[in-house]
């Protein structure tokens, strides 16, 4: 072949690919630089929050750096009302997470595993709360409680938190359930497992990572919620509401200490799930011959 076409011009050592490669590298670098700046923008406020938890502040508003102290870390809840608000937040977040995760997981299972008439309207209905601004959700719930005459407090806050969390759990769990292999359940039943046994021994372990992700999201949303709670709390204060009230009077560095603590705990929980996820993925990729 080569001998037959001796006059075939050999590929010129073209300079274009090299220019293109250089351009590509410059573009990559620019992209990385831009991403780095964006990351900086995201992280600076967090650094400020953490730094100002060590501020030996002299003013009522913790805005100006006055020197380093560990006082506020030694006694995080030493500010009137802060401990109680934090405790309320944890109780509401815990209970609403459990309730929303149970309700949401059941709905997600129904939506992913069954073809049935009315699935799209149900999907749309679940999507609606996500498409409504928080003020509207808060205000409409308040309208209900005022019209029916329910006293605002613990119960109304809990109901509100479960309500806005359910759709988020459904969406999260649903996206993780796609690709769920139903053959595994059928195999279990062929081997004589009862419906309940199949659920406990096969279904639950398989959907657990998705459910956990949904629950974590619900907890994070609940502990952070201000707007909807603000409409329905009566005199029941949660941590974000405490911060709002304090913002008009005095912002003690204790608030930054507690915010930093919430940050670290959530970060640790997320990191743990990411690691767990990766391990699960590696396990899932294993083939019987690997063992």
């Amino acid at each position: 072949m080569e001998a037959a076409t001796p006059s075939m011009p050999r590929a010129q050592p073209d300079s274009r690919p090299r220019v293109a490669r250089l351009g590509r590298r410059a573009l990559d670098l620019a992209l990385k630089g831009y991403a780095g700046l964006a990351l900086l923008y995201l992280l600076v406020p967090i650094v400020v929050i953490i730094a100002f938890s060590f501020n030996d502040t002299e003013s009522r508003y913790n805005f100006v750096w006055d020197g380093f102290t560990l006082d506020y870390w030694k006694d995080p809840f030493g500010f009137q009302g802060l401990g109680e608000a934090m405790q309320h937040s944890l109780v509401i977040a815990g209970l609403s997470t459990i309730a929303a995760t149970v309700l949401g997981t059941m709905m997600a299972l129904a939506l992913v595993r069954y073809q049935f008439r009315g699935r799209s309207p149900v999907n749309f209905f679940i999507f609606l709360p996500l498409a409504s601004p928080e003020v509207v959700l808060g205000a409409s719930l308040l309208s209900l409680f005022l019209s029916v005459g329910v006293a605002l407090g613990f119960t109304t806050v809990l109901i509100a938190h479960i309500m806005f969390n359910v759709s988020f759990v459904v969406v999260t769990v649903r996206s993780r359930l796609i690709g769920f292999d139903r053959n595994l359940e059928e195999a279990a039943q062929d081997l004589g497992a009862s419906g309940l046994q199949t659920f406990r021994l096969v279904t639950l372990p398989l959907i657990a990572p998705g459910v956990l992700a949904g629950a974590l999201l619900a907890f994070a949303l609940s502990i952070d919620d201000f707007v909807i709670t603000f409409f329905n709390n009566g005199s029941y204060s949660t941590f974000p509401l405490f911060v709002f009230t304090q913002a008009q009077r005095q912002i003690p560095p204790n608030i930054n200490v507690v915010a930093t603590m919430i940050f670290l705990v959530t970060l640790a929980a997320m990191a743990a799930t990411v690691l767990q996820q990766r391990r699960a993925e590696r396990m899932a990729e294993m083939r019987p011959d690997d063992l």
Partner: protein
Amino acid sequence: MAALRARKGLLPWALLAPGLVFLGVFFLVPLYYMAEVSLKEGSLEEGYRLTWAFDNYTNAISDFSEQFIRSFVYGGTATAAALLIAYPLAYAIAFQGGRWRNALLLAVIAPFFTTYLIRTLSWQTILDDASPTVDFMRTVGLIADDGRLLQTSGSVIAGITYNFLPFMILPLYASLERIDKRMLEAGYDLYASRREVFRRVTLPLSMPGVVAGSLLTFIPSVGDFINAEFLGTSNQTMIGNVIQSRYLVVTDYPTAAALSFILMLIILVLVLIWARVAGTEALMGAEAK
């Protein structure tokens, strides 16, 4: 056999029922009560009577059109800004993150593990007149010597952009990460330039993320009132601030309810138009197929 099939047909509904009932009672029914309140007249002292007062709606629009327009302008600007910040970032993490992808993603969403209000207060610290940021910008000449960052439209929009950024980043990252790299290689093999591959392969494939991200960012941005409250003045009041104060301070429930409905309606119409233009698939979980 038929009985078994009937039971199977009921199973999804049995799983759905508790959640649907809960959402019905605490999401739909409240909307009904809000509709009723929005058509009432009266005051907290005298009590409210249902008079089908539709002028609550026309009055709400004429009295607060400024805040409505401002909310949509701020929300739209913040959404566009979030897209500009988030897309390259999500792209860089998805395609160049390598083994650091998960760690980087965690760093990106980490800020949102701190309380929303405190994040906003942190921006107050950063943009304050006495802050090093303002000092620096005055020295460099980026802003006038008596110029300020806090309590401007800019600070409110920046705050909104920041606070809702994860809603943009996460769907974008999810859709970019899912792209089969072989598709891009196929593009290069067919002598497409980098720009062409981006425009004709990557961008279209990431559209579901763009659609979902911009919606998830736009909706809370338009309804927000915290950023205007902490980072703005009465000149930056948004519709969320009006609804909040009408309900909780002025106790003018009918106006507040009418405003909420108008806000919800406009958002829903915009969402449906957006969904029609971009395709509903990305929106309501057609991925469940």
